[in-house]
């Protein structure tokens, strides 16, 4: 699904990945490379990819956008490492199951903060910290639901929606400020994030059909060009996984 997107921004995303893993290696030695931590590298490029694509659609990418995308990459990995911990573990496994995930995640969250300060992105500190706070709240609620055998998926889906929404918004806002397209891209990000989470977690799509329709409608607000095609390609891919086709009305228009 992300192949085309990654290909489009190959130089930027490669540089971002290299930098992030250098940061982790410098801070932690070879801990992350001991094969204990499954990092789906492609998935972790989702947020930075959305950020870059949104910036491209809103105006163009620049150094600031790439720096923001880098921050989002750090955030992706930190959230992944801090997603869940075992509640019980033996002392031998403590290091790799609990200690390192917590500390490496903490290091990456701190690096998010450090990069924002270093790159002059302070205007995005509050939105990003609000996002981090909201993610933690949803994770707490998710865990509570899980303990009580209640559905936890809505919280997971909401987290991906919020993260994707932020990625698209920040990318667009950093180049074009607050305007109509920035707002539409924010909404696209939200719905795309929901749909991606639904597809990956095998949730019931019937509760999220409005996101599917909304995404296609929102794409019509964007200029019909190769950049918009990227979003369409992602949507089509998600559609195949979810067993959904393009909404009929839009098929007629196209």
């Amino acid at each position: 699904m992300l192949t085309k997107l990654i290909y489009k921004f190959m130089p930027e995303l490669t540089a971002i990945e290299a930098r992030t893993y250098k940061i982790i290696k410098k801070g932690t030695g070879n801990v992350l490379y001991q094969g204990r931590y499954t990092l789906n590298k492609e998935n972790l490029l989702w947020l930075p990819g959305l950020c870059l694509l949104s910036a491209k659609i809103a105006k163009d990418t620049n150094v600031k956008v790439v720096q923001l995308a880098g921050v989002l990459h750090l955030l992706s990995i930190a959230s992944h490492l801090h997603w869940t911990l075992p509640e019980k573990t033996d002392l031998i496994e403590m290091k790799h199951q609990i200690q390192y995930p917590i500390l490496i995640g903490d290091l990456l969250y701190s690096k998010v903060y450090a990069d924002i300060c270093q790159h002059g992105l302070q205007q995005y500190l509050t939105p990003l910290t609000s996002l981090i706070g909201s993610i933690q709240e949803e994770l707490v609620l998710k865990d509570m639901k899980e303990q009580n055998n209640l559905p936890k998926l809505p919280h997971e889906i909401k987290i991906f929606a919020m993260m994707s929404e932020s990625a698209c918004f920040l990318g667009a806002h950093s180049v074009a400020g607050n305007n109509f397209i920035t707002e539409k891209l924010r909404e696209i990000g939200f719905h795309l994030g929901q749909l991606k989470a639904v597809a990956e977690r095998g949730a019931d799509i019937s509760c999220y059909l409005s996101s599917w329709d909304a995404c296609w409608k929102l794409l019509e607000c964007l200029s019909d060009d190769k950049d918009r095609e990227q979003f369409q390609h992602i949507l089509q891919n998600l559609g195949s996984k979810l067993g959904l086709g393009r909404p009929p009305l839009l098929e007629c228009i196209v």
Partner: protein
Amino acid sequence: MQLKDMFNDIEPDLHKVDSFLINCLEKTSDRLQKGYIHLLKAGGKRIRPAFTLLAARYGSEDIEKVIPMASAFELVHMASLVHDDVIDHSELRRGEPTIRTVFGNNFSLHLGNYLFAKALQIIDEYNNTSLNNLLACASMEMCRGELEQIAAAYNYKQSLRQYFYRIKRKTSLLITLSCQAGAIAAKAEPGVVRILGRYGHNIGMAFQITDDVLDYIADEKTLGKPVGSDIQQGIVTLPLIYVLNYGEEHVRRRLLDILEKKSFTREDIAQMTKLIETTEAIPFSLGIANKYVEKALKQLELLPENNTTCTLRQIAKFIYHRQY
């Protein structure tokens, strides 16, 4: 005399910090609030906000403006404690069950992250780039210090240099920053900010060293947690480093025999403590702590002589003599 007695001058301001802290999470979910209240009720010495408030008295700004900043540093400290308790598998803190004991590892992780994010939002409102940069660097170094500590667990070949590197990051940095930030937020002279930063650094180092000594010699009731908890987790601190590097051969051998086990019974801890107490390790460690206290006191000579400077002087001396 207790530490809180030294804060009499700033007690009204510390109460305001407490109120600010209580209201910090009022807009969040009930579940998070419940955990947060448990954390607040466990108390704490509020050393970092106290330093921020005291440092602010050297500036010209109204102390009210520094209350959120002081609260933010307490939030950062609380966040690190919550995570530390998961990392260390601690069941008690200050005599009370830890967040992880009551609510679990995942809740502790998420609460810690939430508190850190909240602290950053509060500090962002000051719109001060240098403050943000300082805290950003400090928080990264604190994480590195913790990672170093984990990586060095059960490594009994550590040097004094490695130990000081670790405790600087683990403890001293945040205290340094608390002092600096209070002065910066109150628009104190840059020279005063630097002096307070150096004071904070030396106090922080002394504080951690005495903490590490107390882990061997204090009683559980006073400490609020089991004695020997550091060595139980493989954390090698100054008294142990001293014995393993400079102690008598037969003491070193006996210690190493026990240390080889990696998991220790109460009797093992008691035996190790007794062995360490037979050496010069404790006086040596307290001697180092005292040197840092002296350095801190020397910095205070560069500050105007007033009530605040007196309080900082008393705190420095207390840290050396404390029993908890």
